Each structure stands twice: as C-alpha cells, then as structure tokens.
C-alpha cells in the first residue's frame, strides 16, 4: 500500500475520499431502491441483497487470490450490485442475480485491474454477459409500451418493467441528489436525455414512451454518469453522453427492449478513451492547441 508523501506540497488535502464518494453515490440509489421495494416488496429487497452479497464475495475472493488489495471500495461494489439488479425484471431467477453479480465484478472490474481501471461499466458488463448465457435470455424485457401516459410517472406496475424503473419520480429525485451534490458529472444526464429526446423526435417515435416506459431516465442518471467508464474531460463527457443517447434510441428502433441502453452504453464505453482527445478551443485538457 502506498501512502501520501507528506513532505511534498500541497500539505493540505481534500477532506473527501474515493470511498466517501462511492458511499454518497450509493445514497442516490436509495430512492429508486425504496420505490422498487414498495412495489415488489420482499422480493426486491432479496434481489438487491443477493446481488450485493454476490458482488462483495467475488471481490473479496478475488483480492485473496491476487495479491492486490481491492477491498477499498466496498460501497462501489454494492452500487455495482444494485445497478445490476435494477436492470433485471421482477421474478427473475435467483441464479441470474448471483451469476450477474459475479460476472459484473469479474468481467466488469477485476480483469481490468479494479475500480477506475475498468473500461466498461461493471454492472452493464455483468448484464451483457448474463444475457448471452444460455438460459438467461429472459433477463431482457421488451419495453414497447406505446400506450403509456403521464400518470405512470410516479408508480408503474405494468409489464415490461425492471426493478429500476418502477418510479420515474424516484429516479429523478435520486438523480438530482447526485447532480446537486456534484457526485456525478453535472451535465451528462441532461445531455443524454436531450440527445435521446431529439433523436426520438427525429425518428418520429413516441417521446413519452421513450422516457416513461423505457429505462432512459434511469440510464441518464446512474449509468451514463459512471466515472471510470466515461471520458474524463468535460468535452469528452459531452460527446460521450450525447452519442450514447442517440445510440440508445437507434437501437430501440430495432429492438425496443431494456437491453438497448445497455449495448449503446457499452459501445460508447469502448471508445471513451478516444473521446478524451477531442481537441477543444480554450483548454488544453484534451491534448492539442
């Protein structure tokens, strides 16, 4: 373990820490989890805990096997677990939850070298791995609900649901908590939403159904804003979120399911490092000028 060299300036350091940021990020998920537990009861609580346990166990086992200590970001693993569970449809088999958690940590995080080094958003990677495993196709649900109306903003109980999007109001509340406390890139969610909205309009789709029925809102606040798998420069983040939003809608045209956002974002994750190098006028953060 390396420690800060206190003989070097600056001698004051921020009172914040990466672990604290993960903890506070998790607190933004609480409203969404609460709404889910309200609608699905015990089942949701069980799925969340199961995913968390599976993620934490995988992480601690891995840190035993490899010499490095990964057990420094427990809350980030719990967030990963919950973010995975939020993508799953109610009534999903418990095996899917456990396997998804293992896959998220192993393939999403650890093979890249732990938190911050991961190319893909771990929850999405776990979900994608799960979806291609034989027998688990049913984790993807169709979300083509043309007949939605605004009354379903607060609570939805129809079909095509996942644990995550029962209540748009809860998502908005939790997301705004994160944004106002600047725990996530402030502009990304709104750029993602705007871009998705514009594309949805351009393609003549039902805006309402894209926002209300789909998991666009959930993605905007909790997945697009993941630090490690997004670009680090602000311009990179803008392009990243805009492209992810557009891609989500494009994929939805072909397959109106909960997986559209997942694949769109995974694709963008893969090119995120390139987006850091988009030259910009005033700043030299992106390289160039």
């Amino acid at each position, binding site marked *: *373990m*390396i*420690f*800060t*060299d*206190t*003989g*070097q*300036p*600056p*001698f*004051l*350091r*921020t009172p*914040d*820490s*990466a672990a*604290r*940021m993960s903890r506070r990020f998790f607190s933004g998920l609480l409203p969404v989890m609460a709404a889910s537990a309200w609608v699905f009861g015990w089942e949701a609580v069980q799925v969340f805990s199961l995913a968390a346990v599976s993620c934490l166990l995988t992480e601690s086992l891995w840190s035993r096997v490899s010499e490095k200590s990964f057990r*420094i970001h427990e809350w980030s693993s719990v967030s990963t677990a919950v973010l995975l569970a939020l993508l799953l449809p109610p009534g999903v088999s418990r095996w899917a939850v456990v396997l998804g958690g293992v896959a998220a940590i192993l393939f999403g995080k650890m093979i890249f*070298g*732990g*938190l*911050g*080094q991961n190319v893909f958003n771990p929850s999405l990677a776990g979900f994608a791995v799960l979806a291609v495993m034989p027998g688990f196709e049913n984790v993807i649900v169709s979300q083509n609900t043309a007949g939605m109306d605004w009354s379903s903003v607060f609570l939805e109980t129809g079909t095509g649901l996942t644990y995550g999007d029962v209540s748009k109001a809860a998502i908005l509340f939790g997301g705004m908590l994160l944004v*106002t*406390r600047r725990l996530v*890139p*402030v*502009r990304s969610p709104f750029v993602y939403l705007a871009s998705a909205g514009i594309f949805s309009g351009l393609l003549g789709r039902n805006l309402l159904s894209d926002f209300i029925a789909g998991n666009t809102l959930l993605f905007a606040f909790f997945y697009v804003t993941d*630090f*490690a798998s*997004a670009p*680090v*420069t*602000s311009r990179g*983040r803008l392009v990243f979120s805009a492209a992810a939003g557009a891609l989500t809608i494009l994929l939805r045209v072909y397959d109106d399911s909960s997986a559209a956002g997942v694949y769109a974002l995974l694709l963008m994750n893969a090119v995120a490092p390139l987006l*850091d190098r988009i030259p910009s006028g*005033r*700043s*030299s*953060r*992106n*390289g*160039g*000028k």
Partner: protein
Amino acid sequence: MEFRISNQMLVFPSPRKEMSLLNPKIKKAKIPSVLTIPLLQHRGQAAVPVVKPGDRVFAGTKIAEPAGAASVAVHASTSGTVKEIGEFPHPVLGRGTAIVIESDEKDTPDPAVGPRENTDLSFEEFLSAVRDAGITGMAGFGVPAHLRLETLKGKNPQAVILNGVESEPYLTSDYILMMENILEIVEAAKFFKRILRLPKICLAVGEDKLEVLEIVRSKLFSLSEDFLEVVCVPAHYPQGEESLLIRKILPGFRGDLQAGEVLVFNIATALAILEAIKFRKPLYERIVTVTGECLPEPKNLLVKIGTSFNDAIRNCKGFLRKPDRVLMGGPMSGVCVEDWNAPVIKGTQAIVALPPEDTKPRKVLPCIRCGLCLQACPVWINPCLIALAVETGNFDSLKAFHPERCVECGNCSYVCPSMRPMLQRVLEAKGLFPI
C-alpha cells in the same frame, strides 16, 4: 445549495486565517543572539561576502555583494560582530553558505541608512538602488526584484499590480500590512506610477478582505487621490498567482507574461522597494505570519532575516504540541522545512506549524477518473491524463497536454479523492519539456 453547471471548479481550502489575526497588530520579534544570514535567498546566484569573521556590522550594513546578474546584495539584520562564514541549514535548499552574526543586542542602524534627499531617480538609478537594497520577490523563493523591473526597460509598461490577494490558507502577513501601512502602500503606488510612467496601477485585494478594501477606498477618498485602482478579486485559490491575477484584472491582456508589460508585486515587496528608495533601508527584516494549530499564540511578527525558525516560534510561546511538519509559506505551495534551525529568509511569508492530524499519511489509491483534478486546474490542463502518461512511460503523447503551462498551485493534488500525487507527476512531465 449553490448549483453551478460550469465545469470549472473553484477551490477553497479551509482558510484558517483567523488564528494569526487574534493578535491584530504586527509585533516586533525578539532579536536572537545569533543570526544566520544565507547568501542565497532567491532564485539565481549567491552573493559574495565582503566581511570576514570579527568584523563589526550594523543593522543594514552590506555584508555580501551581488555576483552576477541574478544576484542581489545581502545585509546584516542587526548590529554585532561577524562570527563565521560557513555551511548552515537553509529552509529551501537544505543547506547553504551563510554568514553568522552575533548580536550585540543594541540593534544600532548603519549610518548609511537614512532618508534619501532626492528620490527623483532615473530608471537605471532606481534599478541599482533596488538591487543594492537586496530586494527579491517576497513570496516564497522569489526572483530578484531588479530582474523583474528590468523587463520593463524600453517598453511601454501597461500596468503594475500590487498583489494583496493572499489566497493561501493561514497567511495573513499581507493583510496585516495593508491594515497597518495603507498610507505607505498608497505612497509606493504613487512612486511606482511616477518612476515607471505607468498608465495604470492596481491594488488587488481578495474578496475575503473586504475591510481592507473599505480602508483603502476611504483613505484614497480622504487623500482625494484616484490614481490607484482598487480591485476586488475572488478569493478562491490560487487567485494570488501572478499570471492568473493578470488575466483576471486585465481580461483583454494577450501579451507575453514573461516579456513584462505587466508586473505583479507583492505588497511586502512594494513596501520594501519604497523603503529602499525613501530611507535607503535595505531588506533585512520582514513580516512573517507565525501560525498553525500547534502554536499557542499565532502572530504576525516583524522578524530580522536570519532569525531561526525556532527563535521565531519562541516568540509565540513555543509549541503547544509537536508538529510533524513546519512549513515555510502556505500549505498549498510552501516548502517543508526539516531543520528548524534554518533561518527566516527574504521570501518567508509565513512559518506554519501544521497540526499532526493534517499531515497524517493517507492511502494512495488508483485514479477513479472523477475528473476533479481537471476541473480544479486554473490553467485548463489535464493532470489526470498527464499523470497517466508519466506513469505508463508514454512520453510522446505528453507534449499535446502542455504540462509546461502548470503554475504549480497544487490544486490537482488537493482535490484528488484518491490522494494521488498529481502535482509531482505534472512536475515530472514539466521537467521533460522545459519551455
């Protein structure tokens, strides 16, 4: 809660200035029995001693002559005898050659120090007077003042900014100077304006020092002078940094900062120059904020150059508890002084005894790519990717990130939630590309 959509993060480290302001007056420090005066107190060449052990000196006697262009004279800070010349602890360099003076406790001024009859100097006379008075930049390990002034030669200087921003935590020496010596500051400004033929001279004061602003404005009003422009600038760190201050005050300024159409002087430096011109008084004492949670009575002291850190701290009743780190300068960009027998030099704005709870080593974790370091960087470079390139040895890509623009403020290290040594990485990168 304030909600900003901007991607520039303003950094406000906890100010901790109130400690040293509980004694809101400048106190004279006790003159120690032995003073160690280093020959090199600035960036450049050391001076050459002109005294030998056993010589009698007075406060303000020249004891070393400048050698080379980037060198200034060094003066005795009190009266007494020269004891020896040799290697002694140095606050910045670790060790360095110094002249030791044994005080006779009378503090008799040198006869050469006294009011100058004719202060209507030509530019060259002015420069040599400043150099002879041994004046350097008085914030940190500075540059000789005459070198800075020389860049104005043959140019049309646009402005001089008197820098009273002091955005570093703990420091209050400029604040105290402005509170107590505002008339002298106005006089210094007038003098600068006349001798450099400036179209504009400003006094920049941080937003956290509104009372100073009020005092200056009311004094200017009662003197019915309007040549000194008093500017209130935001107090986030590092607003006091020269190039940033220039950009803030002269937004349209596109000139080369090095070429010197605009100069920034510390309040302390400006006053030292005024004293050198008006009273032929060389720079042999300065205001030092002696502060920190580890001291029972933090104060602003008028300290003779050459007083050891230990002696200066003794004026504040010693240590309340033992600090791990004693700094010269503020905690963001100061230097850590290992040997507390090192003397106060011309650039020692402050002696800060940091409390142990602030200097506890913390775990360094991998980067989580939060982007805070970029947002906190005042010159818009990307410490995150620079550090990544340095650590992976990818030096070719470094140049595009312009590490040479870094002003070494330390914000990137300060905000990093993973406690990564960003500043040191950027400095490594900067070292690879000397401008």
